[in-house]
Every structure is written in C-alpha cells, then in structure tokens.
C-alpha cells in the first residue's frame, strides 16, 4: 500500500510541476462554471435548484480530459526508460498500476473539489436534493475510474503517448455514446445489452439519486477488467 501511495504522490506532483494539473483545473472549472451559471441551459434558465447542467458538462469534459492525463502513465515511462528504473525497485506490477490509477483519480477529485461551491451556492438559492447532488459526484468519480482504467490500458498497449490517448478516446467513445445510440436502435435482448453496456445509462441512474448494485457492478467490472489486462500486458513485457 505504501508503495502505491509513493508512486501516486510522485505522479501527482509531476502533474502539478508540469502545469498539466493547473491547465486541467482551470479549463474544467471555466467550462463547467460558464455552462452552469452563465450560458445556455444554466441554473437560472432552468429555474430548478439542481446541478444537472454541471454534471452533463463534467460528464463530457472528463471524458475528453482523462485520456490526456493517462496517456503518459505507462507509455511515457516506457519511452523515457524510467519503467526500468521503477520496476527494478521493490515495486510490483500491481502496485505500479494502482499507483498510476490513484494519482489520476486524485487529480480528478482535486479538480472536482472547488465545484462544491456550486452546491453551496445552490443551497442558498433554493431547495436542493442533497442526495442527488452527492450521488452525482459519486457518479462522476465512478465514471472517471472507468475512463482512467481504459486510459491506463491504452497506455500499456501503445508505446506512444499520443496513440495511447487516441486509443483511449476511441475505446471510451463506445461506452460514452456508441452503445447508447445502438441501444436506441435495437429492441429486445440486444437493445437491453447495449443499454447495459452504455455508461450514460448507469451514470444517469446514479445521478438521479438511485444506487443500484447493478450500476456498481458495471463500473467496477470495467475497472477491474482494464486494470487486470494492463497488469498482464505489463508483466509480459519483453523489453
């Protein structure tokens, strides 16, 4: 566990040292703030004390940002040769994968943290469904976990960070949109299969304030599958 934390904290400080973290946080807060409070279907336009607009914006922007964060995680280390440095220290492959996973998740959590102000502002304006907002955040974190694990897997497969990022986006887009589109085009078993595979189905059900084990199983099984496959790829390295 300690090794995971050491790796995660080093990685996190790299995000901040390289300004990646600041750029991400500024863009994310700018986007989400702009659409939540100022433009389009903002809170005042909708006239309801909920953060649905924010969650939609976050849902999309995280989907785009996460591959940019995870692309270097393994591919970058491989390219710079530092993977050899790290894995010849007392660090197991699992610890490395979890450390990388945790660092990105922490960065997302840090980026989401200031938006709690939105919640308090809303609370001051009108009656708020507290559990829906809380679960909205949980949903965002679960969704981030899925995309981080997909990003990590892509970073393990591709040796080039840019390719890793594009691969993560193209895998992610299936869960993000394509399964949803397919679900609406099919009926019966196939339709419900695609509907189950679509991330938005589960994200919406959680952010509506309903926690179903089915949703949790969905999120965690994708995360587990991706991390496990990443570990396998890393362990079978032939460098």
């Amino acid at each position, binding site marked *: 566990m300690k090794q995971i934390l050491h790796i995660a904290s080093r990685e996190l400080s*790299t995000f901040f040292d390289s300004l990646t973290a600041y750029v991400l946080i500024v863009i994310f807060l700018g986007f989400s703030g702009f659409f939540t409070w100022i433009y389009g279907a903002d809170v005042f336009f909708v006239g309801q004390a909920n953060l649905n607009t924010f969650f939609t914006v976050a849902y999309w922007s995280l989907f785009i940002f996460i591959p940019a964060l995870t692309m270097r995680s393994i591919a970058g280390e491989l390219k710079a*040769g530092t993977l050899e440095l790290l894995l010849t220290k*007392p660090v197991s492959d699992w610890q490395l994968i979890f450390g990388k996973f945790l660092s990105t998740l922490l960065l997302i959590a840090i980026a989401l943290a200031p938006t709690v102000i939105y919640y308090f502002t809303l609370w001051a304006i009108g009656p708020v469904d507290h559990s829906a907002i809380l679960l909205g955040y949980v949903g965002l974190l679960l969704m981030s976990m899925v995309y981080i694990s997909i990003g990590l897997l892509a970073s393990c497969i591709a040796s080039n960070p840019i390719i890793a990022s594009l691969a993560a986006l193209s895998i992610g887009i299936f869960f993000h949109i394509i399964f949803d589109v397919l679900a609406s085009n099919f009926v019966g078993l196939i339709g419900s299969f695609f509907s189950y595979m679509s991330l938005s189905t589960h994200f919406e059900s959680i952010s509506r304030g309903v926690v179903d084990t089915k949703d949790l199983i969905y999120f965690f099984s994708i995360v587990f599958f991706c991390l496990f496959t990443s570990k396998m790829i890393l362990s079978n390295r032939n460098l």
Partner: protein
Amino acid sequence: MDIVVEHLTKRYGPQKAVDNVSFRVKAGEVLGFLGPNGAGKTTTMKAMACFIKPEEGDILVGGYSIHDHPEIIKKNIGYLAENNPLYQEMNIIDFLEFVAKIHGIPKYLIPERILDMIRTCGLEGEKHKLIGELSKGYQQRVGLAQALIHDPDILILDEPTTGLDPNQIVEIRELIKRIGKEKTVILSSHILAEVEATCDRILIINNGRIVVDGTAAELRKQAQGNEILKLGVQGGNIDHIFESLFEIETIDSIDIIDVDKQLFEIQSLPNTTSVKSIFDTCVRNNYYITELTPTEKKLEDIFRILTLH
C-alpha cells in the same frame, strides 16, 4: 550474497539474446561483463535485476529465485540501467527521496542517506538542480546515487562510465573499487581497460554465450601462446636479412611490417625463443639491430580473437 545464474535463456522473437548461460558470482566479487554490442550483456543484467523474465533458466540471488521472490531480490540490488533513465523533471533531492521511500528506508534516516549519497557521488554543487538540467556525467552520478541509496549488497551497473569525460571515468572507477570492497559488483562494459582496472574476474559473452571466464591475468596467459617479437635490422638488404632470418630453426613466421625502416614481426614456434639466434645471425652477417621488442598480446586483441569469427 551469492548470485547463481542457471541455464539462462531469453528470446526476442526467434533470436536468442541469451543462450543457456550459467555462471556464479561470489559475495564480495567484482565481476566484469564484457562483450560486443548485442552480445546479451544487458539482457542478462536486466534479468538479474528482475526487470525481464527469462523463458528458461533461473537466477538465484542469495538463494532466492527471480521467479518466486523478485521483491526480496529487488530490495538487495542496486541497479543502474544502460541509458540511465531518470525522471528528468524532478530535482535531485526529491528524486533521491522518492527512491529512498520506495526502498522503505525509515523516514528519519532518509535525509541522512540523501546527504551521504550526494557527498559520495560528488553532487554537492548541483543538488538543487533539476535532473534534466544536469550534464550527462552528473546524471550518471545521480544514477549511481539512486542505485546505492538503500545500501544494497549487490550492485549491477550496466555500462556505468559511458558518456563520461576521462576525469569522471577515473572518479567513477575509484568509486566502484571502493564499493567493491564491501559489496558484490557486476559491471558491464566494452572498454577493456576499465574492466581490467576494476574487476576481479572477467566474463566475456558473445552471441548470447559465455566464451571466457577468468581473471585478466589468466586471460592473457591463455591467449599468449607463441613468442612474438618486433625486430628492426639495418646494415643489409632487406631481402638478404629476411632470408638469413628465415634460416633460424625456431622461427615460425616472419612478416615485414615496414620496408623502409626494415621492421619485422617474428613469431617463434611454440615453447621456443629466437632472441639469441637472431642476435647471432645478425653478428654473423654484420647487421645491426635497431629494435627488438617482445610484443605482448593486449586484452583488446584477445577480446577481438574471441568475439570475432
């Protein structure tokens, strides 16, 4: 800690980088790993450092197998990889602190160990710099510092002096010698002088196989063989000199190295010496000797003979 390499085989695609290599390194020994590029040195070292898994064979470090207990082995090994990969965007102190933490050095000991390493590796003037800002020589020192910080029993150094200037090479060699008094050191190189200067034992590997295993002196002896003399003779026509030298019974072959200076290379038959006969021949024919030097085979030549085919 002893290291035992047993029937190590590692393939990259159809090509065998290391082919059934077995050897043993005793605790406290400094072993030099020699070989031309692509001979399998780095692959063997990577396997020892538990970075890659060999298809066949095993490496036992202090009795622990790399297949079953890599985590124990990694704790006892300090490894400097070939191209010295480092986190360029970190500064030296932060980087060493990270490595120390990963090695599980107790928190209260970490500042002391870092200072110790900075002093040992001569990084005092640069310690606040980012690694990416350092020259190659200083980066190499940081690489050594990270390999030594947890005071490992075994040190594996893959070409530790590449890219260093002559002064730095001498310094690093001194450092390795000093470390080698207490620890097992395995270092690879293709600079023979370096290996000769620092190592107790030399292992030459070529095409994935071990071709020589012994001390530098043993190696020399093995390849020494026949007496070879460089001879300069004046006072006569070169053809006549050649003919009269050729009549000496103990001489196996004569090569003319320089026609103008009349220099020859003379190889004697096994277990014979021709020095006296040459001298007598010259006296008889009224020639005079301008040069007579026994040629010793250099380690470079031995290396070339063993690895070229």
